[in-house]
């Protein structure tokens, strides 16, 4: 009897010891979970400003409404459904179905404005709750379907993560570090603020100051939209750079998207064609080719060559765009009239190794490294593996793939006295200056070569294919070069083209460098004459319209003669 009592008591004690000693930690955690709560204190995401400190992105609070059907009496369902349908515009039968279901929690509407939330609060509907959420709101763009600089800025998804563009690239700096508060709750699940708790303050995200100019950005987007529509093109992009610093002034894509409603946007539009789209730059490349050859001492702007309109290279016959015999011409004429044979002869005069080193020095063989997410880059074959024919076509911008940032940064070398200004968008992160701005710039070509190329590019506007870009008063003081290259599909060139125009002004002390690319334009009448799709008919008018806005907005005056 005693033994039985001892055994039974032992079993009880053992069970007690099990719960009190062995399971102590686990039970403590479960108990704490009931009255203690760890609340994340979200960090405020940093704002983004343009160069004039115009705010481009604002954090706003939006609300989501949810219901707990098991807390709503059957007699109240009708009133709750009516209230939700009236304020939020929800589908009443659907709401009723949710309320009559066995679910514990269901969203009725997501991310609506504060005004609606206030209306809902006043109704004091039972079993209906409001959840606060932060949303990034972007400025309106050229049309209701787009926001300003959407492809450059990217957007922030509902989890608070930056997607695409600067929002993705600067996620860590913008996002900050969330804090937390561990506090107690009473039986009614109300927080006891003054109870024992631990508290860690959040570290808010840092603000970004960009080199972008919101007014120029808007003007660029507007001119681009009109140009792409007029040219019946597939798409187009504009990139404007400060020649001395490499800071991006405008970064426009068309078509673009509305970052405020990214969840309802075709994801194909998120792609940024400035940085993610590689293309063959065409004759714009002749600036790089001739600059390298002049710098190497292989040619001079006045050096005369014979251009019969065709050249045999590596077993291929490569023609000028017009297939005409131009006779004896100098290199200024070659650039003015965009002659492929001249560009190939300059490359040959310089030699393959020096030409390849020239491509490297101009930054065309490596990614630009710009501080925006999603750069796409196709490296050319190594110097040894490049065929003679590819050297030849690269000299006039076919057979080499670049993105717009690479190409503009390369041309900007001429505008910047022969120095390579690293392209960048962000000038300041918080209080810190972008370290790129403090580094010395790489000298690619001599200042004398840059000056010669500048004069040659002036001649393009005065006598050559750049004539449609002339701005009244600046005709003698602006530099430019067109580019038109056929688009290859499955290894064969098609009749569709990438047409582009690059230029800067004033010639001696440039205030901006701008590249416009129009993809697959179908200019009115080009069915009979494909040259109407050339850069001088499609990209140049867009360049001119934006440049005129820049001249007026930035008070640019021509150089003194």
């Amino acid at each position, binding site marked *: 009897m005693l033994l039985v009592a001892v055994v039974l008591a032992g079993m009880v004690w053992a069970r007690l010891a099990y719960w009190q000693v062995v399971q102590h930690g686990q039970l403590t955690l479960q108990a704490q979970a009931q009255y203690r709560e760890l609340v994340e204190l979200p960090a405020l995401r940093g704002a983004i400003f343009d160069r004039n400190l*115009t*705010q481009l992105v*604002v*954090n*706003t*609070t939006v609300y989501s409404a949810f219901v707990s059907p098991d807390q709503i009496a059957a007699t109240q369902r009708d009133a709750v459904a009516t209230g939700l349908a009236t304020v939020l515009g929800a589908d009443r039968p659907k709401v009723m179905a949710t309320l009559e279901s066995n679910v514990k929690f269901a969203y009725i509407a997501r991310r609506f*404005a*504060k005004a609606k939330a206030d209306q809902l609060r006043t109704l004091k509907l039972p079993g209906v709750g409001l959840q*606060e959420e932060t949303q990034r*709101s972007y*400025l*309106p*763009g*050229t049309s209701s379907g787009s926001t*300003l600089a959407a492809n450059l800025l990217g957007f922030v998804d509902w989890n608070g993560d930056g997607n695409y563009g600067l929002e993705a690239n600067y996620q860590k700096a913008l996002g900050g570090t969330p804090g937390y508060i561990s506090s107690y709750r*009473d039986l009614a699940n*109300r927080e*006891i*603020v*003054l109870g024992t708790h631990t508290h860690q303050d959040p570290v808010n995200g840092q603000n970004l100051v960009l080199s972008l100019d*919101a*007014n120029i*950005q*808007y*003007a660029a987007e507007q001119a681009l939209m009109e140009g792409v529509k007029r040219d019946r093109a597939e798409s187009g992009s504009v990139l404007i750079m400060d020649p001395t610093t490499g800071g991006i002034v405008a970064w426009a894509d068309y078509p673009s998207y509305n970052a405020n409603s990214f969840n309802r946007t075709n994801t194909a539009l998120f792609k940024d064609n400035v940085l993610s789209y590689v293309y063959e730059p065409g004759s714009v490349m002749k600036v790089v080719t001739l600059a390298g050859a002049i*710098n*190497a*001492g292989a040619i*001079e702007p*006045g*050096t*005369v060559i014979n251009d019969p309109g065709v050249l045999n290279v590596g077993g291929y016959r490569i023609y000028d765009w017009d297939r005409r015999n131009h006779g*004896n011409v100098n290199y*200024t*004429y070659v650039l003015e009239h965009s002659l492929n044979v001249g560009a190939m002869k300059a490359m040959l005069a310089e030699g393959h*190794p*020096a030409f390849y*080193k020239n491509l490297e*020095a101009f930054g065309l063989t490596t990614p630009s490294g710009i501080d925006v997410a999603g750069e796409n880059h196709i490296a050319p074959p190594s110097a040894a593996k490049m065929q003679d024919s590819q050297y030849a076509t690269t000299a006039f911008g076919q057979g080499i793939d670049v993105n717009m940032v690479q190409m503009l940064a390369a041309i900007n070398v001429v505008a910047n006295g022969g120095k390579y200004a690293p392209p960048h968008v962000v000038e300041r992160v918080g209080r810190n200056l972008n370290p790129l701005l403090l580094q010395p710039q790489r*000298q*690619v*070509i*001599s200042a004398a*070569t840059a000056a010669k190329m500048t*004069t040659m590019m*002036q*001649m393009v506007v*005065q*006598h050559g294919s750049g004539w449609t870009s002339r701005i*009244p*008063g*600046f005709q*003698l*003081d602006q530099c430019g070069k067109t580019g038109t290259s056929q688009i290859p599909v499955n290894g064969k060139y098609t009749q569709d083209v990438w047409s582009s125009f690059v230029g800067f002004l004033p010639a001696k002390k440039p205030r901006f460098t701008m590249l416009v690319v129009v993809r697959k334009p179908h200019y009115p009448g080009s069915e009979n004459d494909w040259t109407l799709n050339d850069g001088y008919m499609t990209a140049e008018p867009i360049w001119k319209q934006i440049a*005129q806005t820049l001249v*007026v907005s930035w008070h640019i*005056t*021509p*150089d003194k*003669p």
Partner: protein
Amino acid sequence: MQVAGSVAAERLRLNVFGHAYVGVGAVVIVVLFYLAIAAQITQSSYDIARLQDQQRQLIAEQDQLRYQEVTMHAPAQVQQHAAQSGMQRVIPSRFVTGQEVAVDLSAAVGASPVDATPLWLRAVAVIANTVAGTRDVMASTKK
């Protein structure tokens, strides 16, 4: 003395009970005081929570107003308002004129620049470039 001492002792014993009552009373007062303070703290914490909620709403309203303000200054909005007011941006057509700087293509073209580098130096450069490769673009610049 003996009698006086026993009376004092009796009083002292009563005082011990008295102290017990006082002690219990004090404990009750402390407990009540604690409860009152705790209730006050809890009430205050609810007030703080309510004020925090109010603050959150005010911040939300401020954000909304900030967005409205920023949007009103946005180029798109400015242009829209300008257009509604009948204003239009005019591109200036008059600028300061400059002197023409143009190459006369019809003029006789001179001979190509002659490379004055001695033949032996060119041969050395060819060998050096083949063996070591050119250092950079600037290295090959003709002085």
